[in-house]
């Protein structure tokens, strides 16, 4: 009963957030006020509770009442924390525990801008497929080579360039001797050992 049928492209905002400076920072999506239990409703089954740590310090009981009121509704429940105090460690620890018990996901933002961006993005990505964060294969050769080689500790992008221009392909690099690697500009003992470890040591031991 609480969940209103999704009215399309607008974020529904609880009127009690009217004075929240975050509202100014929600850009690129439509906003409307409506009668909902959470602070923001950013999708059919997604809601956001907003909490500034400064406020939480003054009224520690507030968030508990809000969570309680929320009950079991909504599939994805977000607690958006605005981290605007320096002594955050204790507060975040306690909130993390509360949220874990109540099936709420915590998101921390450090500025109102960032918080606004989060809220907007939740709405925009409502129906977005996860391709953005899935494994992809469509990268070009240079990028692939660079990410592969820089995954080895101590190897930087200048080194990748050096390796490519003076040795050739990935397979060529794999079979280059340590002596040869060490004669390249910018390659010291440690770097060469790291490279050799990655290329030649077996993946596993026999145990």
């Amino acid at each position, binding site marked *: 009963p609480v969940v209103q049928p999704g009215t399309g492209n607008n974020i529904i905002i609880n009127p009690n957030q009217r004075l929240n400076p975050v509202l100014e920072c929600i850009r*690129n*999506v439509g906003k409307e006020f409506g009668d909902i239990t959470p602070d923001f409703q950013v999708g059919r089954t997604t809601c956001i509770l907003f909490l500034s740590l400064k406020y939480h310090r003054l009224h520690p009981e507030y968030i508990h009442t809000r969570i309680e009121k929320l009950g079991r509704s909504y599939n*994805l429940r*977000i607690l958006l*924390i605005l981290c605007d105090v320096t002594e*955050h*460690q204790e507060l*975040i*620890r306690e909130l993390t*525990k509360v949220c*874990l018990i109540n099936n*709420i*996901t915590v*998101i*921390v933002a*450090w500025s109102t801008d*960032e918080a606004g*961006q989060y809220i*907007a*993005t*939740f709405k*925009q*990505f409502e129906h*977005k497929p*996860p391709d*953005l964060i*899935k*494994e992809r*294969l469509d990268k*070009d*050769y*240079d*990028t*692939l*080579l660079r990410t592969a080689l820089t995954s080895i500790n101590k190897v930087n*992008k200048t080194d*990748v360039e050096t390796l*490519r*221009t003076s040795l*050739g*392909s990935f*397979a060529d690099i*794999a*079979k280059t001797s*340590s*002596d040869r690697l060490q*004669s390249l*500009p910018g390659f*010291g*003992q440690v770097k060469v050992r790291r490279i050799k*470890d*990655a*290329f*030649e*040591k*077996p*993946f*596993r*031991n026999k*145990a």
Partner: protein
Amino acid sequence: MAAPLLSFHKEILEKIHDPSTSDLLILARGLGLRRIICTLLKIYDSPQSLVLLVNATPEEEAAIGEELGIMGCRKPGLRVVGYELGKRERQDLYKKGGLISVTSRILVVDMLQSDIPIELITGIIVLHGERVTALALEAFIVRLYRERNTSGFLKAFSDQPEYITSGLSPLKNIMKELQLRTVHIYPRFHEEIKANLENRRADVIELYQHLTEPMEAIHHAIVQCMTTTLSELKRSNTSLDLDDLTVESAYFRSFDVVVRRQLDPVWHKVGPKTKQLVSDLATLRRLLTYLLTYDALAFHAYLETLVSSNTTTTTGAARQNQSPWMLTDAANIIFQTAKRRCYTLSKKSADRPSAVTDLVDDEDAWDALDAVEGRVKQPTASSQKPWVPDGMDPVLEELPKWDLLADVLQEIEEEILRQESLSAYSRGSNIVLVMTSSPRSSALVSEFLSEMEADAPKGRRGRKMMETKLRRYLYWKGKLANQKRDGKNQALPQLDRRGPQASSSNALDNSTGLSEALKKKDKERQARNANRRRVRGGAPSSSVTTSQLDADFDTQYGLLPPQQTVVVRAYSDDTDDQILAEMQPKFIVMFEPSLEFVRRIEVYRNSNPGLGVRVYFMVYQLSCEEHKYLAGLRREKESFERLIKERGSMLLPIFEDKRLGSKTGEHIIKTISSRLAGGRKELSAQTSQVIVDMREFRSTLPSLLHASGLLVIPATLTVGDYILTPDICVERKSIPDLISSFNSGRLYTQCELMSVHYKQPILLIEFEENKSFSLETVSESTKPYAKPAGKYPPKKSSGPSESERGPPSIQSKLVLLTLHFPRVRIIWSSSPYATTDIFNDLKANNFEPDPTRAIAIGAEEDPEAGAGVNAAAEELLRCLPGITAKNVKYVTGKVGSVRQLCELSREEVQGILGVEPGNLCWDFMHRGERKQ
């Protein structure tokens, strides 16, 4: 032969050898720390005892093992435990006792799994004591050790007092972590050592060499660039206390650390410009050393690589914020002068400026040209080599120290002759030892010596070598330009390129460009010039010997008498002592200054009475080299003084007895619940436990978890990093991890797996202690894209959203992740310490996890669950196209190493990965292949 101990060595040993005490020894570098450690190990060696050596690098392990062997401690001597050794074998090894060197990560795991009988350890010897901090694995080891074993000894050693100076009371912190109460400090200016070493002084000749004019210009320009970069850095961060950063301190590597420490708390605010500046300083510092040690061509080539990797971004587009120093006049001087040291272009080519690169690109035409011109036979190859492009005049400036070295060798030779003519018996061999700063420069020096023309005028003695290098350079240059062009448009690379390789050893013989006639002539001349001296490749990596062998094969048979040998080596820590003791050289040339080596010579001189040693000490005058040497001396002295002062006023920590007894008491109080019949003892027998993935032992969290009282159980997990309860599974990501695993898609797969197997999947985002607790660090990249949005009326454009315009920010990816995995919770932790608190919180009143079940989860298809893993190799493998999180396990089971994968044929790779991914993977690995 092992060198005898000097009396101060004996005094130190006297103080620390007692196996019932634990000590920290800080000794000045170069005074023979390894000798002391080896003697100590020898004393402790017996099958009845179990002595562990911790924190040694692989080189040190090998060298210590060898030295112990020499000292007669052979059966079985020092054994090394690496990840290759199986669990069962390790257990056996520990049981048999003796001296064992263990990698810290393995030792921690073994201690936690009780594979090693902790109570029975006789003692632990910790090297590199300066690196032991609260977060280091060694501190964890000591804690585990002391929990169960209070009678064993712990000896820690350090020869780097400079490390122990940051912070309030650094020495105390280290001693606290090592749980030690005594420290011995022996600087060079210690009374005993001073008296000991100044008995006999070596005969030192200091040679101050001036830089050549172009080198001086470059040197000056680099320093200027550093100054501008530094002042830029200061200007853009006025709020910070950066006043004590000077160009002089920027010569040292520790400078970077200092800057980062200053900037870390605000690192997210500083913007990409400052980050660029900080890394620029490191680059410039590297350039300074390269200027003095690389030959002109290699230096120039490095500069070119630097420029080309600096002007393009990862995607190949022009870069937004280039390094500011590259745009200054001084940088122009660097580039121009560096080029002029190699060659100049005369007018002819100035008319058509691109001629050179064009010519170089076309390798086949080159070969043809070479062949033709080679046969035409020019009278001498001296004036103009046929392969030098038109209009290019090779300058090929040589490093001034080369000449100096040639002269010095000449002098030594005469001296040897003179001594021989006197025919008085003298100890020591006539081998000349030349010491350089790095294997690379030692390779260069020996190459120079082997190809030197002694009768050539000064400054042209290495002409021949430089010409070979120029040839290689021209080839490489063509390749660089080529790659650049097709880097973007993905054209298939030159598969059948031939030509002289840039390989240092066999370039001459492989080069198809060099015609037969020329080769013959070279050989003849070499034979003619073969002078008395031969160079023996002493450095572990000097590859010169092979080419030398080929070049004049017949003169090389048989052993050379020692007076004809010059050994070129790089400084390599305490191993140098061994070399000196073995070779007993009378003549030593220090090609580059080194504080430690001077002391080694002092020790060597004093442990060999009656041996006349002459040392030639070469420094470039008024260069960073000289400055670095002097400043290094001063820094060491200051840090020793500070340490001594701290020791005087130190409050020694008293260690509480943390044995099992006291702990269970605490535990009982915790677990008694008053609900149960007024506190009746009804304990769960288990202590609170966390299952931790083996790979996580690289991070600091397991150590802290243990410190907070949790029982840490190491296991090889397929799903998740930490299992807190039967339902809670945690995947830990540091910020760089988070970014990279979002990019690679790994996080998606991991969340998928966690959601399948656990009720409560958790993503832990862990920030670093003392660093900014904020994500903005990573979202900066979107800023330049967000700006133009202001030009349009904000409300009007309902089109592309902010995040779609730029590359998607880490925040938006996080949003997407939560949308697709509504059950995944996120823990935001500002430091590992905060994480331990949160973990303890989550574990309260929950069931304990079951290790066997946790290991089994998701590991069904993995035949070798529980085996040791080479993390670096697996990481590299994952980055290859065609390899996904799903098949990576399968591949590691099928193929031994990355190199083996590279050697497979296309069909074999397809057989493992499947047709399409196999194709991708094979193409990637063999793109740009060079035909042999």
